[in-house]
């Protein structure tokens, strides 16, 4: 076996060589990990968990962490849009209504009927699915662009119907228990961990769907409906699927919101109104519709900065519509000139930096043409 003939000329010269080899091996391993995006999501989750731990220990401002938690809830909603807007090119204005369904289901399950979180979770999803299936099926039968109109309508209807049921929903802390065991009461800090865990799970699921036959089918549908249909992709099925995924995420976010905030007043809060749906849409577009990190970044820009920093500044507290204005301007600018959003911007910056480094290496006169 020639493979065992030692090529003397490749031997390590001095010990430095050996050390260089081991560093190379570690770098190779890190590179392999880096190529797997799931690692990124896990690291993100770990950072958040550590932040909360530090906060419980009193080292980090707890209202700051609370703001992060609230933003994460909206991140969950935005993730649902990755597949809907980024991969299937469908716009939906119904998010707020489905968040409402999740919140109210949680309220009824926990406060009124004394059931566990698990039941609340399942019920929110099931009811959201039923409503979404009907609405989605009817509007997608005609054409994709009607989805926005129909979801706008259903969101308004849901808000009014829910308001008619009960205007203000409250959950007592004692009612939130894990698996219904009284001794395992969950405080706000513990809910933060649940939010982070759910966020990680949904990031992984979204990432997996994007890189699966389903994700590719959606992209095919978005780019060329004829090609998609010619190769077996039923437009109705995949559009409906993308829509259902987005509303399930919204319902889960509604549930998390109720667990975390425990109180919301339908008439005075903007959570269930059109402005939430618009803000989420804005966040997704600004961040980059197709990219998971993009939507997370976009959500932090639209909601996070406001909650984490701007609330401390009086000017912004008195003019809450400033955020809306800012969001709207960014959306229009991004769609007109930079459809890929922040994600595209960062990618282009990365390419430019790489090109710059390459140029430096090759010197002023480019690669050696021999």
């Amino acid at each position, binding site marked *: 076996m020639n493979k065992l003939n030692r090529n003397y000329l490749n031997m390590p010269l001095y010990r430095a060589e050996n050390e260089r080899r081991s560093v190379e091996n570690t770098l190779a391993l890190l590179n392999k990990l880096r190529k797997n995006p799931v690692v990124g999501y896990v690291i993100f989750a770990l950072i958040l968990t550590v932040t909360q731990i530090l906060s419980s220990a009193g080292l980090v401002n707890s209202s700051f962490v609370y703001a992060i938690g609230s933003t994460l809830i909206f991140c969950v909603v935005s993730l649902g849009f990755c597949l809907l807007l980024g991969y299937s090119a469908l716009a939906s204005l119904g998010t707020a209504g489905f968040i409402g369904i999740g919140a109210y289901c949680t309220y009824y399950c926990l406060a009124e009927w004394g059931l566990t979180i698990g039941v609340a979770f399942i019920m929110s999803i099931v009811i959201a699915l039923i409503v979404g299936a009907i609405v989605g099926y009817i509007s997608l039968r*005609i054409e994709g662009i009607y989805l*926005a*109109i129909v979801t706008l309508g259903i969101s*308004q209807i849901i808000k009014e119907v829910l308001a008619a049921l009960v205007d203000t929903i409250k959950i007592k802390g004692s009612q939130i228990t894990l698996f219904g065991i009284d001794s395992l009461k969950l405080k706000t800090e513990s809910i933060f961990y649940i939010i982070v865990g759910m966020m990680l799970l949904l990031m992984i699921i979204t990432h997996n769907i994007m890189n699966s036959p389903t994700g590719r089918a959606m992209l095919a549908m978005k780019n060329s409906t*004829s090609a998609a249909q010619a190769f077996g992709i039923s437009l109705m099925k995949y559009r409906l699927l993308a829509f259902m995924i987005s509303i399930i995420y919204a319902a889960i976010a509604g549930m998390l919101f109720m667990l975390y905030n425990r109180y919301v007043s339908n008439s005075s809060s903007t959570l269930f109104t059109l402005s939430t749906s618009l803000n989420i849409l804005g966040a997704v577009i600004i961040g980059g519709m197709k990219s998971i990190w993009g939507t997370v970044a976009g959500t932090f820009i639209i909601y996070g900065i406001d909650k984490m920093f701007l609330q401390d500044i009086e000017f912004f507290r008195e003019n809450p519509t400033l955020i809306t204005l800012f969001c*709207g301007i960014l959306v229009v600018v991004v769609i*007109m000139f930079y459809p890929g959003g922040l994600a595209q911007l960062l990618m282009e910056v990365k390419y430019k930096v790489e090109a710059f480094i390459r140029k430096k290496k090759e010197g002023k006169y480019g690669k050696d043409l021999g």
Partner: protein
Amino acid sequence: MPIASYLQILIGVIPSMCAGILATFAVTLIFKTSYTTNFAQGVISAIGAYVAVELTLVYGLPLWAVAFVGVIVAFIVGVAIDVLIFRNGRYVNALGKQIITMGLISIFIGLIPFVFKVAQFESVPVLPFIHLTQGITVGDVFIQYNTIISLVVTVVLLVAVFILLQKSKWGLSVRATASNEIVAGMMGINTKVITAVSWGIAGSFGAVAATLYIGNVTLSSGYIMTTTQINAFLAGILGGFATFYGPIFGAVIIYMLNVLIGCICIHVPVLSNWKPAIVYFIVMLLVLWKPHGLFGKKMVKKV
């Protein structure tokens, strides 16, 4: 006697129905010429109303006069949107246009508190053309003068615009552009002007609708026209965007359904909370039955 109450409900719906019909026409016009749903329609209409209300309440000018100003401002805003934004985007496709209109909602909602002093007021009174207590009584039914004015204005505008659409050169250009923009351009129609003017007309119709609307509802925020706008879109789907008159019929049907359910609610008061849901549900059933609208035709796409 229930008949009187039924009629009263019917009369009561007329102001919002008039607003809805005008909004529907505006939405249809933009949909057919720019191939996009204009989600900012409601906010632009509200801006028209805000201009009128600002001039009336802050500067004391009569409502009649300032209503025209509001309409003109809305016209200009509409044209500006088409010319400044839609014509300048690099990669704007149908979905992109939809999203731009959604972004415009946010922009205008954000701007309203800064531009209009009226937005800072604690509460804005309703501003009908003639005070709501004045009207004529027919039998047991009281019809406000304001309602009659709304009806007359709406009918006049609708008739005028449909006559123009059918008989005038402008109307022909609009119908040609709506049918196929590229071919219309080749026939010598200046489609850019037609589209921009359509946006302006849509804006002004919306402003008229809003001005009529605030006769019965206080101008509390930029979102007041949301329900009307939703009804307008649903009317469009119900009637079918294939024609100009289809959505108008759709709007009438939707508001009449509201009346119908309202009448039923007199006897079954518990349903009144569910009225919007029931109407929506019935509209969805109708759309399920006829996906391309009651007056629509299926269009076959060339592959």
